[in-house]
């Protein structure tokens, strides 16, 4: 029987984890919402962020929290290039796009194996183990995890403001609702699509940067992250920003609670079970359909 402290500990682990999941799902929600495409390479963009942060840290001693900005900028541009030159040309057929993103995912994984080998990698900083104790040290909260959660929150708020307040954000929102009508407003929807893909990919890579501070990475783990992102986005209602945030936290908590009852290696099964249950019983997501 878990104690109160054990429960709080588990809950906080879940929330910390869920916070980063939320940002990755936010990225997917934007891409899906605006472009209505399934991006199989989503998890690989997370890998790119993680390994970029790893490399910057070990080669140039850049602090992971600082490298987030660099990761974001680089992947924002990279994502746009991918969209412009690989996805846009085949956009008339969704199954081509699907195959293209799948090919892209395998390509990126291949590159990662070449450059970073199959060893497990992580970023351990001097402050990685700093923590706060509560309840006679029964509850230990890692400061870096807290900082990661705060960063996730900041990203969420920024994206939210961006969507609601800026011209380009509003363009993304209306393109998501009705692309043709958006064209009739004079919006260059192809440009908006590539910006959306860039933004979505960049957010996902930031998730990777944040994750590698608290867990090990391996070039082959992108697929499972893609699946997780889809689980969260479907759970929260395809294309909804708030849904992505709440869904992310929820999946984080469910996973954490699940690992109380079974070994950690079964974690993917939990995520996958959620996906199946939601698809079968609540395909429109917990909060129904909303849009970007």
């Amino acid at each position, binding site marked *: 029987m878990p104690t109160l402290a054990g429960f709080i500990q588990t809950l906080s682990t879940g929330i910390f984890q869920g916070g980063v999941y939320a940002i990755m799902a936010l990225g997917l929600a934007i891409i899906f919402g605006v472009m209505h495409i399934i991006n199989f390479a989503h998890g690989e963009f997370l890998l790119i962020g993680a390994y970029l942060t790893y490399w910057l840290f070990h080669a140039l001693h850049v602090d992971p929290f600082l490298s987030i900005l660099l990761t974001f900028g680089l992947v924002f541009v990279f994502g746009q290039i991918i969209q412009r030159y690989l996805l846009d040309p085949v956009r008339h057929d969704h199954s081509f796009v699907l195959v293209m993103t799948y090919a892209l995912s395998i390509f990126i994984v291949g590159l990662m194996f070449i450059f970073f080998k199959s060893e497990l990698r992580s970023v351990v900083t001097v402050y990685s183990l700093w923590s706060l104790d509560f309840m006679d040290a029964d509850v230990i909260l890692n400061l870096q995890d807290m900082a990661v959660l705060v960063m996730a929150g900041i990203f969420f708020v920024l994206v939210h403001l961006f969507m609601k307040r800026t*011209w380009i954000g*509003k*363009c993304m*929102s*209306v393109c998501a*609702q*009705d692309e*043709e*009508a*958006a*064209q*009739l*407003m*004079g*919006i*260059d*929807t192809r440009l908006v699509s590539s910006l959306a893909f860039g933004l979505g990919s960049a957010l996902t890579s930031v998730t990777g940067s944040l994750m590698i501070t608290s867990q090990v990475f391996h070039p082959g783990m992108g697929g499972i992250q893609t699946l997780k992102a889809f689980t969260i986005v479907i759970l929260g209602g395809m294309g909804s920003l708030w849904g992505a945030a709440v869904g992310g936290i929820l999946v984080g908590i469910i996973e954490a609670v699940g690992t109380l009852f079974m070994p950690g290696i079964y974690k993917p099964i939990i995520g996958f079970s959620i996906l199946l249950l939601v698809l079968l019983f609540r395909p429109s997501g917990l909060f129904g359909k*909303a*849009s970007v």
Partner: protein
Amino acid sequence: MLEVMHVEVFYGKMQVLWDLNLQVGVGEVVALLGANGAGKTTTLRTISGLQRPSRGCIYFGGKEITSTASHEIVAAGISHAPEGRRIFPNSTVRTNLEMGAYTRRKKHDLEKRMEECFGMFPILRGRLDQLGGTLSGGEQQMLAIARGIINGPKLLLLDEPSLGLAPLIVKKMFEIVAGIRERGITVLIVEQNVRHSLEIADKAYVLQNGRIVLSGPAYKMLAEPEIKKAYLGV
């Protein structure tokens, strides 16, 4: 101002427009009439670049726009209030209007333009923060038209603005269209409501199965026996 010449349009293998020619002069209101499925919507979609003709060309203000991107056609001065209104349902009325003014976003006169729209559609003022999807049909149509004129177009394409509206509102809608012309905007209007359209139009074209079968000044059309029989029920 607008010249459509020998335009042919296909949906896949199915041809829906045959050798379509029409002219819209500056300051005119031109009505495009025809039964369901005649190709009226397709004509407007082709003009605004949503659909590409496989033959023929389109000129606007002396420049060819046949293969110009939709968003550039809007920027050149053609607004299109599409069939079914196509309001952004999850965005507020304000955002809908802002998006209508998108091509003029750098001019910083948005508030002034919104005020002008409220002059024409007072009902929208009180609805600014309401979501587009929650407006009534009539209000949505007004928003669709407001969205079309807020960026100060030279030509406005209207696709069945009176569809599904109560008779009283239909009358108002045609008054609004007449008002739009007063402001110096040229109008190409697609309508099922033939009598009302011909009353406000200078010129009309009748489409039948993708071909123009009749055209001429509106007042003559009103007297045309074929029109009377087919559309006016007299």
